[in-house]
């Protein structure tokens, strides 16, 4: 009964080679988020979608893009991964109304070689 599903769980990519991480949800939530979490650090919000409305954090590098083709799916595209982009990437969803908590997927561990 997984509600937020991230694929793959582990991804290895080459330096500079574009990579896409995927997230799907069965909760029908309005909001989908992408967080980056480096080792022993708090999750850092990259961007989020409220329905089709894209909201980028001011300090998110241009190297990171996102797509949300429908309510259920959201993708994180890293155009030219660098060694510093190696991290856990967490997808989360919420209803978007006041007080609704975020539900997280299990994350994708990205390694850049």
């Amino acid at each position, binding site marked *: 009964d997984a509600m937020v599903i991230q694929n793959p769980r582990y991804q290895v990519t080459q330096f500079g080679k574009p990579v896409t991480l995927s997230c799907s949800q069965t909760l029908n939530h309005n909001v989908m988020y992408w967080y980056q979490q480096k080792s022993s650090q708090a999750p850092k919000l990259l961007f989020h979608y409220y329905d089709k409305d894209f909201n980028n954090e001011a300090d998110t590098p241009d190297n990171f893009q996102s797509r949300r083709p429908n309510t259920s799916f959201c993708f994180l595209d890293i155009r030219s991964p660098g060694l510093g982009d190696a991290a856990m990437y967490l997808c989360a969803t919420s209803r978007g109304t006041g007080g609704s908590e*975020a539900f997280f997927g299990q*994350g994708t561990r990205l390694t850049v070689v």
Partner: protein
Amino acid sequence: AQSVTQPDIHITVSEGASLELRCNYSYGATPYLFWYVQSPGQGLQLLLKYFSGDTLVQGIKGFEAEFKRSQSSFNLRKPSVHWSDAAEYFCAVGPRGSARQLTFGSGTQLTVLP
């Protein structure tokens, strides 16, 4: 800007001992408050949340947290820790009226000794 401070980077307790993890926040008004737990290599799981009402909230896995407005704190407690509680714990705040952004603390790593 809102912020969350978890002053303890790492806490070690013995199995069966009580636990308190500290969380302080800075925000212009009373925010929504959350505690999440993360096991190694996993996503975050919600333990409990505070929106309004009773300042002592109960969560899953025997955890509770108390909101203290005067201290801007939302400390997490458990009376008797189990070995399976070893994980990283994150306190988070979110603005009222919107769940669009959570601000996380830097986390507290909990080690449980047998």
